[in-house]
């Protein structure tokens, strides 16, 4: 009777149960009845399913699913969870708003919160130019290093964030403009000038002509030894960091027709607390400078000690 339905049912003697009629290698299946409660459990799952379909969105329609009677949606739940999370952050945000930027580091816990909040805001607003690791690229400053065009303490960073660089939207924007010398100098002059600039980092020999050109045209902003000036946003020429490249070609190009990057100010787009948090984050990346003011205060405090 292998695997065929037997019309004549037979009974397994020890259990008194009918065989189903299926056999596998001599093992036969018995038609053992299920317990009744099992059947009830099955009905209960059907009832549950009906209830679920009524209460929650279930049937897919053409452009949406049926709405459940309690109106639950996963988007609604997400919005609710976000608003709960925002409410939970409110206290910290208020505290950050109320704290002077310069005073943030005095409260390490608040500073930590600010850095974390800044990291999140950075990923949304800043990575497009400065990169996910804030390492920048040619023309976009690296925010991890210790070279700052406009100052690297918390307040200077905050100011840059608020008003941007060469940004039309604010009077207080960081502004510097280097004239292009391409039409003024001859090629040999530009070569000599570039050679002098490279001599600050001992990559080239300085010439008298180059030194003279530098003294006449560049020194007022970039300084005697190429140390640059933060007041005028003039980059240092004597360090290892070059926004537009450190090769002689790149430097010559920058003398002829300088590139000037623009960074938008964020004062109208982000709230002050977020800008403060962004400043804290950028400051925390490893190159942040201690505020001059803070150093003074510390010195004063030290003086007061007997």
């Amino acid at each position, binding site marked *: 009777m292998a695997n065929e339905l037997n019309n*004549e*049912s*037979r*009974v397994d*003697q*020890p*259990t*008194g*149960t*009918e065989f189903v009629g299926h056999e596998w290698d001599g093992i036969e299946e018995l*038609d*053992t*009845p*299920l*317990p*009744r*409660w*099992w*059947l009830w459990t099955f009905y209960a799952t059907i009832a549950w399913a009906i209830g679920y379909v009524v209460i929650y969105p279930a049937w897919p329609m053409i452009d949406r699913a049926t709405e459940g009677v309690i109106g639950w949606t996963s988007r609604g739940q997400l919005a609710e969870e976000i608003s709960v999370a925002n409410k939970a952050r409110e206290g910290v945000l208020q505290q950050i708003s109320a704290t002077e930027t310069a005073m943030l580091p005095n409260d*390490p816990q608040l500073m930590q919160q600010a850095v974390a909040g800044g990291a999140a805001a950075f990923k949304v607003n800043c990575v497009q130019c400065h*990169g*996910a*690791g*804030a*390492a920048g690229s040619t023309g976009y400053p*690296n925010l*991890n*290093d*210790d*070279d700052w065009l406009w100052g690297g303490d918390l307040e200077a960073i905050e100011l840059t964030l608020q008003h941007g660089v060469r940004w039309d939207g604010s009077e207080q924007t960081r502004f510097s403009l280097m004239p292009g010398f391409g039409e003024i100098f001859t090629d040999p002059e530009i070569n000599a000038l570039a050679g002098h600039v490279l001599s600050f*980092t001992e990559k080239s020999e300085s010439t008298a002509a180059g030194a003279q050109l530098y003294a006449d045209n560049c020194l007022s902003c970039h300084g005697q030894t190429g140390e640059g000036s933060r007041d005028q946003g003039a980059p*240092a020429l004597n*360090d*290892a*960091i070059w926004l537009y490249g450190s090769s002689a070609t790149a430097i010559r190009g920058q003398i002829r027709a300088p590139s000037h990057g623009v960074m938008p100010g964020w004062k109208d787009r982000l709230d002050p607390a977020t800008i403060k948090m962004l400043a804290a984050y950028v400051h*925390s990346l*490893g190159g942040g400078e*201690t505020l001059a003011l803070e150093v003074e205060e510390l010195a004063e405090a030290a003086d007061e000690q007997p």
Partner: protein
Amino acid sequence: MNSPEDPEPHDDKRNRWAEAVAPAQSKPELDAASQKVAKPSPAQSSPAQSSPAQSGSDVPLSDLYEKHTVVHNQRIDGPFRRFKWAMMVLTLTVYYVTPWLRWDRGPFAPDQAVLIDLANRRFYMFGIEIWPHEFYFVAGMLIMAGIGLFLVTSAVGRAWCGYACPQTVWTDLFQHVDRLFDGDRNARIRLDKAPWGPAKLARRSSKWSVYLLISFVTGGAWILYFADAPTLLREFFTGEAAPIAYITVAVLTATTFALGGFLREQVCIYMCPWPRIQTAMLDEKSLIVTYKDWRGEKRGSVKKAQKNPEEYGDCIDCQQCVAVCPTGIDIREGPQIGCITCALCIDACDRVMADIGRPRGLIDYATLEDCEHEAAGGEPQSPLRTLRRPRTLIYGGIWLAIGAALLFALGVRTHTELTVSADRNPPFMLMRDGSVRNAYTLKLRNMEGRPRTMQVEVGGLAGATMWTDTIARENAALVQQIEVPADATRTVRAYILAPADTRDQSFTFTLTSLDEQRESDTAQTLFTTPGGDP
């Protein structure tokens, strides 16, 4: 007993049983047609079948679904019943008392002896504290529990089912509640059949209230393993506990009430996978509770046996073994899935045998092999020979080996650990003076229950200095001291500055605890430079 055509001894029961259930029709002569006609008879004609059996033979065969028959097991006393009592007291005591045990771990860790602290991801068990990264200890213990079940099955059969399984213990407890409120077996059967009236209603509601109380205490004790027991208990009753505490208690109360109060043996027979696994693990050398049919058959009353001693065996068909069975089976039908080997039928049968002056052990712990041996006239052997069989020894060996390995791992584990991950974006940072800075995230793990000062040292990187997110660059040095809170991992961002001419190379961070333990851990990592490989 044996029919002549059927010489195989292990078929005895089947044949005997068939004769018993269909005495008029000796089975070899049956053709298919007559079997079909005769089918309702097995259920009614056998005395064994008058019990509320689970085998499905109580219902007409045409029924697709079987009505649940309540098992009203009779009170019995005897050595196995007393052992069961002892096990019940032991297991329930362990369950209810454990969360209340205290264990001093100092001011920075909870003082509950056994605590599964999910919120803080710690598992405390007396002197042992397990962190999430050491979860292999828990996995090892679970494996030991699994192999322990195999070991117990191999050594003493379904002893877990019979004595220690929570389903068995709570079912036993609820059956005692039944006895307390409604009397013993016969009274309970009568009450079941009685029409609903005020008296029955009062009895049932008071009994079910006690069911509910037991269930609530069961569910309530469970949550105490997951938080500080005294605090949680107070919060629970003042309404301050977390919603999940109430939900857990509600679910466990409901399941205990349903599974212990009503479904009982149905759980063992239909829901639990363990009996199914055990049927695959049992063989003729396994210890089971068994009826010695060669001694018992043919069943007959004492009077009949006196008249005709040759024809009748020791079983007087008193049904005591069936009456006391908590799962309502008839052990005389042979080994079956419904038998949890609680041995109450042994107690019952031994008492009857003592009363009528016959030797004990008509139903007894034995292996099928021993049964054959005895049936063939051999001397009875100690059932505990199963302890010495190779299978038991192998399971025992594996179990002990895992246990020893876990203990060893526990003994040599260090409470100080360092992991280092180098920043990949950016991989290095050129500084103004041409020197190179790399950033690393260090995780300083302090598994001691007290804050410790630890020292981080940079090794193998010439001219390097280190500062961190909390140690200013002005204080940069090759060695820094960092405070790590008690029982915590402190994440530190470390900056390493190396001179301009440094090339890519490996170097090490070494973490050392600055206390009498001087525990130390070293992590190797890479310093990346714009210059690249040397």
